[in-house]
Each structure stands twice: as C-alpha cells, then as structure tokens.
C-alpha cells in the first residue's frame, strides 16, 4: 500500500427499534413465520396508504441531536421507483432531497488517537422484503415480514483512511445507536449493516473511482472486505488498468469481493415526493422534548472520564463502548479518587470483560456487581490484598461464595486472605527463608540481582501470597545489607 492513500465512506442502515413498522401497524419483531407480520399496507394491496410512525421520527431526531447534526424542521418523503419482487409497492419510500438529519460528526478512537468523521446526512426509509431462494424448487419465495421495517440510513463523508478507521467508526456508531436506544444493534439479524465506498489515490490527487461493497453485517467482514478491495484496486491501477465504478459483494467464504451484477444497470429511480405523505414537520417543542430525554452521550462521558479520573482515551473509549458498561463503571467508580477509579477501569476492561466474554453474558448479567467490585478494588488500594489475591476473591464472588456489597470482605475473612503486614511475623518468615536459601543469598551478595527476586518469591510462597510484597522487599533488603 506504499504510496497509496485509501479513501472510505460508509453508509449504515440502522434498523430503528420501534414496535411497529414505519408506515403500518404491523409488528417488527424478528423471526416470525414468513408473511405473518405483513399487513395490507406492507403487501401493498390496492388502495392502502402509508401513515408515518412517530416513534421512528423521534428516534431519528435523537440520533441527529447526538451527533450534533441539523435536524431539519421540514423534510420530504420521496418515492424511489424500481421493480423487484420483494419490493411490494414498486417503490421504496425514502428521503431524498430533503432528509430529516443533515451534517453532524462522530468522534472515533483509533489506537489512542481521536479522529472526527463528518456525517453527510441521515434519512428515514423503509426496508424491503426478503427473497428466499431455497426450498422452492427453482422458484423464489417472498417473505414480506421485513418490508416496511424502519431504517435510518446514516451516510458519512469519505473521511476514513484505513479499514481500522472504518471499523472504529462502525463500532462507535454501533455503540452510539444502542446507547441512545434507537437500535438493538443485532448484526446477525441485520439490524445494523454497512455499505462501504472504497477508493484509492496517490496522496494529493483527486478522489479515485469508488466501488461500493454492499451489506457488510460484521465488523470483521467490514475490515476484510475493505482490505481486499484496497489491494484489488491498487493492483488494477498498478497493472495499468482503471477501476470501474460498480457495486460489489463480499464473500466471506472466499474472502474476496466480486461485482454484484454482471451488467451495469443504469438505474433511474425517478425520485419524486410521495403524494400520500405530507412533508414531515418537526417543531421546536418536539426537538426540546427529545433533547431533554437524551442520556449523557458517550463522547461527553469519555471527556468526563479523562478529566475526572485521568483515564486514557483508549480506556475511556473501551468503557463507553456501551451505555451499560459505562453505567457499571460509573456505579463502581463513583466518588473514588483517580487512582482507585483507574484500578476500577482496569478491572472492568480486564478481568470483568474477560469473564463476561467467556460466559457469553452481557454486563447486566455480571455476577460481580458494581458495588462489589468497588469494595474489592478498595481492598487492593488500601493494601488489604494484592492484585493477585484480588483475582481469587473476584472469582469467588463470581461463583457466589458471598453476596452483598461487602462480599469481598467476607471472602477475604473467610479464606484468611488478608495481607500479612505484621512485621514481626514477616521478619520471622524472612529469617527462615534466608536460612534455607544460603546459595541465593550468596549469589545476591555476589551481585546477582535476580537472586533477590527469587528470595522475595520464596517469602511470598511461604505466606501463600498474603505478604505485602513491598514490605517483604524492604525487610529482605535490610537483612541482606
């Protein structure tokens, strides 16, 4: 990729988590038997008309406000006309010239650096149905349960310069839409899917010809598809060819992208304002109401974590990857000094996340509560237990050995895990260790620093890890000089 600049823009289809469809009262629940959630409106019977779902509008506004965008007071629903068997009306109702949301931006963290991705627009539209090619003996079945499902299509400027940035953006957006509760974020069920527009150019040159990779429904596919596509485009150009503008599909089994249609259809969608729907008018009081109901946003929280607890951008972004994690962290770190908060952050991002992953649980199902973790971390901070012992206590709480906010203390007492800070006792044990390990004593005195660590280890072993390592070091140093 040397000497090449990658330019990426993303279009994300976010399924809004409304109970009913965007223009009908049919349910949007996933997984029902085919065509059982398709009303007369969804199957486009003669004479039926669309009625806009207010909740979908409210969610679009919520998104606009969370990314600092302009929420247009007046937007227009247009018809995008084309024929497809799973498009019942012969047109899709979408927003074209005047979308509900324009502009705005999203801050992403790549490594430990922040970057701002500008948004072009976000518009409301309805999803189409689904064509089923299996089980129909060479024919095609149509399931219209998904037809009319509300989508918010969020379009970025071509601001991303690597697959890593694209993935960071997709993750940040995924986190945000779940944070503000407009989308369940379920990528397997298609609630969140991206189209990536990819082109390459020599730095400083005009934008190259782009290809659009459709329907990427996992972060890994997004990353791999972009990487493949970038390599492909560079090869084409370096071999003296030109990149053709086209729509491509990513095949995860072969890890490659390929053209979606054999011939280039020049689609003319004949957009025009839908005469069945009035222009969407959004009033100031309506905006104010949505604004007032908006939770503290991830970006704001990241900044608060940085200033209140001196967390790094990376730590802050991990903790704000979901509202549940951030809320857990807030509950565990509330009012703590920065050092304790930092420890809490490490525990949330480290052992807790690992446990949740292993058990395939959400943070809401964590078996160590925020207050329990806080107490545990406090016992590390005040020297009652070491980090290592803390892992043992954490596991014990997880396994249900004790309950209540003071579970950590209960387990420390029950298992006798309190650090030995009695210097008399430690001195005695140190003397025993020194007597038993004459060779290491001699080595250390002969200049081998490593031997000292072995002696510390022996003391720790003799106390089953309960000795305060700092105290042990001091005692041994004193005795060996």
């Amino acid at each position, binding site marked *: 990729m040397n000497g090449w600049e990658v330019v990426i823009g993303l279009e994300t289809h976010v399924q809004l988590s409304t109970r009913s469809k965007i223009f009908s009262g049919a349910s949007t629940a996933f997984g029902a038997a085919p065509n059982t959630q398709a009303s*007369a409106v969804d*199957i*486009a*019977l*003669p*004479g*039926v*008309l*669309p*009625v*806009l779902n207010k909740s979908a509008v409210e969610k679009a506004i919520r998104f606009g406000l969370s990314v600092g965008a302009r929420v247009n007071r007046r937007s227009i629903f247009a*018809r995008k*006309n084309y*024929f497809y*068997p799973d498009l*019942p*009306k*012969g*047109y899709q109702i979408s927003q074209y010239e005047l979308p509900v949301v324009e502009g705005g931006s999203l801050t992403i963290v790549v490594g430990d650096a922040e970057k701002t991705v500008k948004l072009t627009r976000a518009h409301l539209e309805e999803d189409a149905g689904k064509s089923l090619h299996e089980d129909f003996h060479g024919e095609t079945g*149509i399931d219209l349960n998904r037809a009319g499902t509300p989508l918010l299509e969020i379009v970025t400027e071509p601001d991303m310069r690597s697959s890593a940035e694209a993935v960071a953006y997709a993750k940040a957006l995924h986190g945000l839409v779940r944070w503000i509760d407009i989308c369940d974020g379920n990528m397997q069920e298609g609630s969140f899917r991206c189209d990536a527009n990819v082109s390459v150019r020599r730095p400083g040159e005009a934008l190259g010809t782009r290809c659009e990779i459709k329907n990427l429904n996992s972060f890994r596919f997004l990353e791999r598809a972009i990487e493949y596509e970038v390599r492909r485009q560079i090869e084409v150009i370096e071999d003296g060819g030109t990149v053709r503008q086209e729509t491509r599909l990513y095949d995860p089994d072969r890890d490659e992208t390929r053209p979606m249609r054999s011939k280039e259809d020049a689609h*003319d969608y*004949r957009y*025009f304002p839908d*005469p*069945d*729907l*009035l222009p969407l008018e959004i009033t100031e009081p309506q905006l104010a109401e949505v604004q007032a109901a908006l939770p503290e946003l991830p970006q704001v929280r990241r900044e608060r974590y940085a200033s209140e607890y001196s967390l790094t951008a990376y730590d802050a972004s991990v903790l704000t990857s979901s509202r549940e994690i951030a809320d857990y962290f807030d509950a565990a770190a509330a009012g703590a000094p920065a050092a304790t908060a930092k420890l809490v952050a490490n525990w949330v991002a480290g052992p807790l996340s690992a446990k949740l992953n292993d058990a395939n649980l959400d943070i809401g199902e964590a078996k160590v509560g925020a207050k329990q973790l806080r107490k545990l971390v406090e016992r590390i901070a005040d020297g009652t237990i070491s980090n290592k012992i803390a892992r043992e206590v954490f596991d014990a709480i997880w396994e249900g050995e004790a309950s209540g906010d003071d579970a950590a203390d209960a387990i420390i007492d029950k298992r006798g895990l309190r650090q030995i800070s009695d210097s008399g006792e430690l001195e005695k044990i140190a003397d025993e260790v020194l007597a038993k390990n004459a060779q290491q004593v001699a080595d250390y005195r002969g200049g081998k620093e490593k031997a000292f660590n072995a002696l510390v280890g022996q003391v720790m072993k003799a106390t089953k890890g309960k000795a305060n390592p700092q105290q042990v070091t001091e005692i041994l140093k004193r005795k060996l000089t």
Partner: protein
Amino acid sequence: MHRESLKSLSEALAGGKISSVELTQLFLKRIAGFNARYNAFVTVDEERSLAQAREADNARAAGRAGPLTGIPIAQKDIFCAKGWLTTCGSKMLSNFVSPYDAHVVERLNEAGAVTLGKTNMDEFAMGSSNESSFYGPVRNPWNVDCVSGGSSGGSAVAVAARLAPAATATDTGGSIRQPAAMVGVSGLKPTYGVCSRYGMIAFASSLDQAGPMAKSAEDMALMMNSMAGFDARDSTSLERPLEDYSRDLAKPLAGLRIGLPKEFFAAGLPADIAQSVEAAIADYRKLGATTVEVALPNMKLSVPVYYVLAPAEASSNLARYDGVRYGYRTPEYRDLEEMYEKTRAEGFGAEVKRRILIGTYVLSHGYYDAYYIRAQKLRRLIAQDFVKAFEQCDVIMGPTSPSTAFRIGEKSSDPVQMYLSDIYTIGVNLAGLPGMSIPCGFDTQGLPVGLQVIGSYFDEARMLNVGHQYQLATDWHLRAPAGV
C-alpha cells in the same frame, strides 16, 4: 319507487311502507333487467346485498336506524369492499377480491347503506368516456350509442337509469362531474382531504377524491354526511369535525355572489351548452344571486399540467401491479423480467399504458425538472387564480363539460381530444377545491347539459345549498331518460 329520492326512500323505510330487503330486491331486479343494455355494473352479488339488507331491517327493528339505513347504493368499482370483487375496471384486478373495506365503504356500511353492486368505470379511473374499461363501455341511457362520460360512468348511469338511488364515485380530473353532466345527474367532488382515500384504488394520489352521485343536491348532502370524515389511515385526510351537509339546504340564495370566469365562456363552447348554462345563471339571478366576471388566467394550462402530474403519480401508483402478489399474472414466462413485462403488457389496457409511459418519461432523469417540477409550479399558479377569484365571489359557475355525450368510438382514437373533455373540471382538482355538477338543460340532440358549481375550500354545505335551491325552482334533475 325507483324514481324516489333518497330522502323519500328513507321516509318510506322509516314509516314501514317498505323493508330494506324489498327495496333492495326492487333495485336488483331493475339491474337484472337493464344492465345488459347499459353495462353500468361490473359485479352484482344478490345474496351479499340481501344479507346486508336483512341486517339493516334488523337494525331498524332494534331502533338503530340512521338516514341511510336500508338504502341500497351502488359502489364504484374503485372502492375496495370486503368480500367483493374489486376490479378497478382492469383485467389486472379481474380476479381481485378485496379482503378489506375502503374507509368510505366502511362509513356507508356503518350508516346502514346496502351495497347493490360495483359499478363499471374507466380502467384505473383513466378516461373521460368509460371506453377504457376492461368490461366494455357504459352506455348513456339518453342515447345508448353515446358514451356515459368517465371515469365514474357506471355510477352515473346507475343513478340516471334509476338502477340505484345514489352511488359513490371518484374524481381525479373531472371523473364525477363530467359523467354526471353527460347523463343528467348530480355529482359532487369534495375538497381534497374531506373523504378518506384509504381503500380507494389510487390513480393520482394528490388529485383523487371520492364523492357522491345522486339525483339531487339534497340526496348528495345525505350521502356526504356518511362519506366524509377524518381517517387516521390516510395522511392527507383532514382532521375536522364531522359536518352536517344538509344544514344549509333551505337557506335562501339572496345575496349569493356568483363568479363567472370569462375563460369558461370563450369561443369553442357549443351554443346549446352555452345557452343552457346561461339560462341556469339567469335562474340564479331570479333567486336573488348577483354575478361578477372573474378571471382564471392560468386555466388554459390546467390540461397540460394535469397530463404531466397525474400520469407521473399513476406510473408509480400502478407499479404494484406486477403479478407477484395478487391480481393477473401472465401464464407463461421464462424469467422474472419476462413475467413483469408480459403481466403488465397483457394486464393493462392501452390508455393505462399510455399514461404509465408518459408518467415514466416526465419523472425520468433529465426531464424531471422540465416537466414535473415545472408542472408543480404551474399547479400553484392555477390554485392562486381560484383563491383570487373567491375574493370576489362565493361560488364560481360555468359549464361542466365542453361537449355533451359523444358517440362511442368517436374520440377513442384521439387521446388529446379525449383529454380536452375535462378542460373545465381539471383546474378544480389541481387546486384541491370542491366542484359539483347539476343538470341544467339539454342540447339539440336531447342529451343532458351540466352546470358546474365550484366552491371555496370546505364550502360543500353552501354548494349543496346552491344546488338544492336551484333544484327546488327547476325540474331538470327530475327528468329521466325514456323508459326509465
């Protein structure tokens, strides 16, 4: 009995002089006798109608009866009616039995009206003569070699031939008023948004409006009381309190200011039509009205504007008839493309195809601004003309149609000639105003002439008053074709 008004039929039912079942049977018998001659009905389902009539009789016996309870009416086949074949005059929907009721049908059913059958119409309401129906032309009872007008020709003739006391109809560019004028009945197109479009098969959404056809303005008021009303399922339906359209019928007309647009009386209007219309206006003066000349300078643009906008919307509205989910599907095809192409080629008639092509063209990339956007701008100018005119008058009057009923086949090879049949009515739809046609005389051939009355927004009650007072003073609306 079949010549009686809605009002007197209602009184007969209330007084126990006749039951709804008897009344329904009477009209069904007339349909059975005359429909072969006029082709006004596409579907009659005696059992279904009689079941509804029995229900109405039961409701009346139980003391639950309104002004329309037990009254049989005809429904234009553009309205979805649960369990009824609903064809919209097209082969495309020749097998479509609607699983639901249109709002208008629902409201009339709730009022106790009995559906007598579904009336013939131009295919997807596209036409001014009822010759584009898949089910053949509707014949004019004043002269069966002449057209009925369209697209609500079936409803118009059902009322004119006294096969139904009243009927529902729809008007996109004149489809209620023009056939009403051509067969000598009364027809009202309400303000856009007054009647819900839910369940009314869409032709051009921004222009379509349902309305009644009856023998008199007084009967139309009764129909309107049960047809109009807000419906949350139609986003363009207007949220207003229910109105009593009969409330102003008895008001005297003294002081009524009638606007006469000079464009409505220009050269080209046949002398016999002009005479009838002018005589009607003279009658209004006798009733105490004054007249003032008004101008509708952009009137001449209404036909071209309409034939950009209506086909544009139609081309999109009719995309759903693709053979995939319901309706006609071609029996033989190799792949999806061919299924679409053959289904639509075989399922739609020539006029519908012509308009889909025009609509597709005016919306396509590169032409959209030149046609569609420009037509929208002109539409606004046309509407403004009316608003200005209504600063000077209460209602506008003129002819409904530039000709009386023409011979079947006479204009069918010349679409532009056909399109000009709606020259006086289209502007009203573009502006979203209410318009009405009432009979006001006959031409030299003995064919009916209609007087068009245009009102300001939501002024239907006054228009019906204007119609009723005229009908109290004249008898054009009572004249029936020979043998009827």
